């Protein structure tokens, strides 16, 4: 994976480098009601995420990381509290604006890949481009470029179920980058990758942040990823318990493991 060539793809996105907060969440709560029982997945998360920041989120399983991603990615509505993306309260957006936001502003990398099983790799990567209005020719070329850069050029026509977990994860990453998003939400992106590919992902994230100002928010338990990020937010039982820098990590990692 060559970081140089990916940066070329983002040439247009680079000009969108603004300062200020790209995402703000204010006292976001999310309660899941299942019959009589209630699960408080988020109990009031207030976080300001700066443009161009690479933020890691850490927390034990079930602490609410994925739920928080859903809130700030416009995939779910908070029970209470507000989420602002680019100063816009996303609760105020109509469905078409929300779809536009999901399509062009945010790239999602899911914990469980969520590739579309009936489509080949390249078609998976082309899909968000189609939604963005690119014609088939153009999107095929662009998708092929991105796939080559995540090292899957020769696998473009394979179906997801014919690939390993790590390969699927890379397709998912390629798809997330399809429309040159300014925000990348990655839920355990290196969970299924070997050490070397994991490092390549980290390099890619750092490059996206440094050269293009992409804001990256990533949930992870990977020490290397934590170290590469600007800020580590610790979540436990639906609340932010602490915010540290990677430099302070060495001591605190012991608490987790």
């Amino acid at each position, binding site marked *: 994976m060559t970081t140089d060539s990916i940066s070329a793809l983002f040439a247009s996105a680079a000009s969108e480098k603004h300062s*200020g907060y790209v995402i703000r969440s204010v006292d976001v709560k999310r309660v899941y009601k299942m019959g009589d029982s209630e699960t408080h997945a988020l109990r009031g998360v207030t976080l300001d995420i700066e443009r161009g920041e690479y933020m890691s989120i850490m927390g034990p399983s079930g602490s609410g990381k994925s739920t928080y991603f859903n809130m700030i990615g416009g995939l779910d509505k908070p029970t209470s509290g507000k989420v602002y993306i680019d100063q816009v309260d996303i609760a105020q957006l109509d469905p078409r604006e929300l779809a536009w936001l999901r399509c062009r502003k945010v790239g999602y990398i899911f914990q469980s890949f969520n590739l579309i099983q009936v489509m080949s790799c390249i078609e998976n990567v082309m899909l968000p481009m189609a939604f963005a209005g690119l014609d088939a020719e153009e999107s095929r070329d662009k998708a092929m470029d991105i796939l080559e850069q995540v090292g899957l050029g020769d696998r473009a026509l394979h179906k997801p179920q014919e690939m390993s977990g790590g390969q699927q994860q890379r397709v998912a990453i390629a798809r997330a980058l399809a429309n040159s998003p300014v925000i990348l939400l990655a839920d355990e992106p290196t969970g299924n990758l070997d050490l070397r590919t994991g490092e390549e992902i980290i390099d890619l994230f750092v490059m996206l942040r440094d050269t293009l100002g992409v804001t990256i928010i990533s949930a992870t338990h990977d020490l290397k990823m934590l170290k590469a990020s600007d800020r580590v937010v610790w979540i436990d039982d639906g609340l932010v318990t602490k915010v540290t820098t990677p430099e302070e990590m060495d001591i605190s990692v012991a608490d987790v493991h």
Partner: protein
Amino acid sequence: MNQLGIQEKLPFARAMRISIQGIRIRVGRSLVTVSGVVLGIAFLMSNLTSQLILKAVQSERELKQTVDLMQALVKSEIGVLEGKQIAVAVFGELSNADEQLLARIRSGEPAAIRAFGVSGAPYESYPLEKVGEGVVAMLVLGDAEVAGISLGDLTAGMSQKVVLDSVDDRRFEDALDSGVRRELFFGDQVRQRQAELKAAEKQALFRTIWIAAISMFVTVIGVSNALLMSVTERFREIGTMKCLGALSAFIRTLFLIESSLIGVVGSVVGVIVGATLPLLVYGFLYGFPTVLGALDYGLLGLAAMGSACSGTILSILAAIYPARVASNMVPAAALRSTV
């Protein structure tokens, strides 16, 4: 700063391609859905076809009985036909029964059949006033009223003066006072039987409508259920597409395209299966020439068109609810489901 845009709709052709691709890959699943439509439409079509075949075979039989009845009267009035002269006066159109009766009379080898008002072969045609001396009886056939012709004049040259009429013995103005003996082919009994047949036909129509309603119900339930299942098992896919920028309208379009393709394919196959099966069964039962010869192909075509169209339309209607369920899902919820 607030440079948000509005998501454009995906062109229909793109949606079509994505939908067809999905169906192609999920062949097994799609086949199950299609077979639901096939079943419902085949049921409907086979019932319509059976009705048509039965009606055709029955009217054939009915016709034979009618001709038998007419022939019996001819026999009792005239006796053996061989060597006798018979006159035939036709007013208006000959019915099927009339024609078959004439054919049978001809095969009884009478000396001559003098036909009036019939143009062309196989009967010699004479002007009306020339009913000759040796003529023993006259058959009055056809469905028209007789105007301006006197029965007395017409039968003046006949030796026995027997008139057999297939419609009404008073269609000649002077019928009652001409002194000519008139016999009707069809007595009250036959007329009553015809009325009964009409009533039975009405009943058969009701049954057909009832069966059609049931099979349409089967189709709707079957397709709805199959599509609902295919929505449920695709929650994740739908959620993912929404994350990538799909509009709800696109998801709806996807399911509607899928269901209309399923509807068209299922209906066509259903119509073919539903028409073929009863043709085979009744063909073996009554003989293929009888069945194929008597069938009303216009009505059969109409039944096929109706069944195919209703199958397609019902499939699309059946998809509306599942499509709405799918398109209204919150992406996060759709993504979580693990079906």
